[in-house]
């Protein structure tokens, strides 16, 4: 089976600062992959590289066999990679429903994800469709951010720290929607600070430390000491 996403020897930079070193990663159709690591390990940079917010060497990232390492963000989401950005980053001038609709800006398919499908998964958003997003609770804002990304009908959903600043019970609610998202045909990449939660919800994981992949595999195949060593260094 050919990989949906193939990252090969990715070195990513912010100006002169190198954030990623020779990162290799694969994502198969229908898979959930977690990326774990401490603060500053390069997790968000990796997602931003995939989404086109950080531009890289052209052949460092393949999606469906096409080189997209240097493609602009707007073209990448049209190809089917959608990012739920860290900190949600909703558009404050747009209502809940408008935020969702703008997510489908470049989408021609309209299925499986559309307003109705998103509202069915997050019914509370239907009640608040005309609200200002700034008055929503953190959990509701996160639902809008996820729904907004789904509206582009992605084949890969990239989730950056979707549990950040949310109550544990709300986080579980949000994580419960991941299987449904996969059932609708999207692979999922989650970046998560909470290692236990990440390992519980993924098929495979990659651990980053200071820009290098220090460990990867299936959660069932590695022991806690190995993860701890890969996470903190030894």
């Amino acid at each position: 089976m050919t990989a949906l996403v193939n990252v090969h020897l990715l070195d990513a930079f912010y100006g002169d600062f190198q954030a990623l070193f020779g990162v290799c990663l694969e994502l198969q159709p229908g898979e959930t992959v977690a990326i774990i690591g401490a603060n500053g390990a390069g997790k968000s940079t990796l997602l931003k590289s995939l989404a086109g917010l950080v531009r890289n060497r052209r052949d460092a990232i393949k999606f469906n066999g096409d080189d997209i390492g240097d493609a602009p963000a707007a073209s990448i989401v049209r190809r089917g990679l959608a990012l739920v950005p860290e900190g949600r980053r909703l558009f404050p001038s747009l209502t809940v429903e408008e935020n969702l609709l703008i997510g489908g800006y470049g989408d021609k398919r309209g299925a499986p994800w559309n307003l109705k499908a998103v509202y069915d998964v997050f019914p509370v958003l239907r009640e608040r469709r005309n609200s200002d997003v700034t008055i929503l609770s953190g959990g509701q804002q996160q639902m809008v951010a996820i729904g907004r990304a789904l509206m582009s009908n992605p084949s890969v959903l990239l989730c950056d720290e979707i549990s950040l600043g949310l109550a544990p019970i709300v986080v579980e609610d949000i994580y419960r929607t991941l299987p449904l998202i996969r059932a609708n045909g999207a692979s999922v990449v989650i970046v998560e600070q909470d290692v236990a939660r990440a390992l519980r919800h993924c098929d495979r994981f990659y651990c980053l430390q200071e820009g290098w992949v220090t460990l990867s595999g299936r959660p069932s195949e590695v022991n806690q000491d190995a993860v701890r060593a890969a996470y903190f260094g030894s």
Partner: protein
Amino acid sequence: MIGGIDTLLEGMLLGGVYALFAVGLSLIFGIMRLVNLAHGDIIVLGAYLILTAMAAVGVSLGVATLLTVVAMFLAGFALQRLVLERVLGEDILPPLLVTFGLSIVLQNGLLLIFGADSRRLQAGAFEATSINLAPGLSIGLAPLIALLTAIVVVALLQLLFYRTLLGRAFRATADNPEIAQLMGIDQRNIYAFAVGLSLAVSAIAAVTFGIRSNFDPSIGPARLLYAFEAVIIGGLGSLWGTLAGGIVLGLAQTIGGRIDPEWQILSGHLAFLIVLILRPHGLFPAGRR
């Protein structure tokens, strides 16, 4: 009594022209956070283009305006893609300097081509037609149409912004250009469209202004000042506010001018300062809905 009403009507009608000056400025600032210092000169350019289309091509005022609106839209699109795009970034100074330079280029270019004589757009009989409201109280048809045009332009832009996909893309880009790209919005085209729209509206401003008063290549900066004042009085980011700001400015100038003709411009500026002191965010600051 009649004189008072006449002054108020006159001021409101003048406000329509000022509102049209201001809408184009407000558009670019609202979406791109760019202050276009060449805005006044762009309006003057529009007036000369209409003049040229009428004189050289021989079309009527209406057709000339339509052609100019289209030409100015395309010019705005090109201006953004070829010039402004290269200097937009974190630093607000480079685009400011570029538009300042553009202002000087336009003034001198117009001077070179058309000379320093003042001109006026000829609207024929239409120009002199007035409507009698009461004995001794009448308003000119042309100024009335200018105000109605301003209202229609603002209403259409409001529809565009709040009822269309493109409008949502404008607002999303204004909120956060980086995240807007993640939605598949090509920021370069959105900005180019915004500048095109601003210049197209400036062409409409140019025709209402060119019928009403004389223009020559040097008057752009003063129009920019009125546009600024109308935007600030109305409140940044609100198009209806900009319309109201134009009317407040028009009223202040007309009332001041009625007291003493020398006070006309001064009282406009005073009204601006008073609003700035009492309501620093303008009369109708953009309600983040």
